[in-house]
């Protein structure tokens, strides 16, 4: 297990500006953490730092005592805009299974699981937004991650696609995968979250269990956000 996660005084600087400004938080071994906050508050950068794709300017991140870079392979990140290979749907999964030394017979089951079995031989880049995102999820699951990082995977998808993706994620979570999920969709957060980490301008405005967050948010920023008021 690479959990729990401990983040201490995390700073990320671009030039003079601190885009992440001293984050400290802990995440336990199971469940689904939703990261929320206005645009530009640093959610995507935080996910990349947790995943080991970027190096912090200060502070530290430890996954069960290990640096993110050493555990990248034990996590999977689904980007907001999935980057799919210029190949068929099936070949996209085959590629990951082969690259990561996984059992290649799992491909069909994975595609069925995300509802893309009938699209296996189609060019991946002609999939609709929802289908593409499901393929990206299947690819992430193909690596058997212990932690699933999701960066607004349902933004700009129709309601049916959102439900489908939430179902797949819930299923993974039920099988013990730790989920860290960035979203702007308050309804989605309500449905999925065990706890909420609310970011504002590179700082943690609050980190509370879901029930408390939606019932009585402690920070003014979260209250405004939930009430649909503009927060910057």
């Amino acid at each position, binding site marked *: 297990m690479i959990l729990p996660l401990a983040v201490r005084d995390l700073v990320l600087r671009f030039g003079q500006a601190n885009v992440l400004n001293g984050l400290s938080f802990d995440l336990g071994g199971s469940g689904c953490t939703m990261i929320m906050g206005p645009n530009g508050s640093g959610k995507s950068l935080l996910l990349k730092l947790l995943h080991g*794709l970027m190096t912090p300017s200060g502070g530290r991140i430890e996954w069960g005592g290990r640096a993110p870079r050493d555990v990248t392979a034990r996590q999977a990140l689904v980007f907001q805009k999935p980057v799919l290979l*210029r190949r068929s749907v099936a070949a996209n999964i085959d590629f990951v299974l082969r690259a990561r030394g996984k059992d290649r017979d799992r491909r069909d089951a994975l595609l069925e699981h995300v509802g893309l079995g009938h699209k296996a031989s189609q060019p991946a880049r*002609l999939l609709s937004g929802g289908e593409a995102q499901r393929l990206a999820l299947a690819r992430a699951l193909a690596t058997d991650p212990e932690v699933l990082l999701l960066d607004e995977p349902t933004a700009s998808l129709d309601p049916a696609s959102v439900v489908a993706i939430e179902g797949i994620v819930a299923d993974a979570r039920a099988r013990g995968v730790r989920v860290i999920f960035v979203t702007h969709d308050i309804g989605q957060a309500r449905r999925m979250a065990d706890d909420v980490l609310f970011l504002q301008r590179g700082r943690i405005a609050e980190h509370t269990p879901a029930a408390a967050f939606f019932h009585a948010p402690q920070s003014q920023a979260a209250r405004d956000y939930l009430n649909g008021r503009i927060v910057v």
Partner: protein
Amino acid sequence: MGEAVTLALQLVLSGDPDLLEIVLLSLRVSLTATVLACLIGLPIGSLVAIGRFPGRNAVLIVMNALMGLPPVVVGLLVYLHLSRSGPLGFLGLLYTPTAMIIAQTLLIAPIVAALSRQVLEDLHAEYSEQFRSLCLTRVQAVEALLWDARYSLLTVGLAGFGRAVAEVGAVIIVGGNIDHLTRVMTTAIALETSKGDLALALALGIILLVIALGVNAAVQSVRMTATRQAYV
């Protein structure tokens, strides 16, 4: 001009064996050179595309500059090496199709390297974060880039082939334009021009153009199929 077109048609329709021999040698030399140039140029292009190493900018500049290498200079360099009094003279390759293949390979390898570098770097910009997330090895990443860029690289190969099949400066020096041995389309055109038989020279030029059109059309149709599948 009209005379040349008539003559070109006559030559082709009569199945002139000398013409066939020259055309086939042109294709054999330039296609082989293209394949070899790809074997040399693609690894170099990939290396520079995804590598970050000191002196990379200098390599880039040199690579791009070498694209403009004059064929006669390449021919001369190869001649000096393959000449009996040169370091590789013992191989006895001067005035053989092999010498012509070597010269054209050296002529177009920089083109393949420089153009493929551009193609692969653009694709890498799109894929690199996803690849790092999937923890691909460098070799796996390059393999995937080469495969996904295959249709664009086909065009790169075509650019190299076009340059090879159209050049006269290098092959005439190292091949010697020997009848039935090293005479190709371009050297035959140069010869007929120097004999003042401009109509025949132009007729050969027209045939060369038609061959080039044919090769381009074939590649284009492959590319169009690929574009339809969003594989480009």
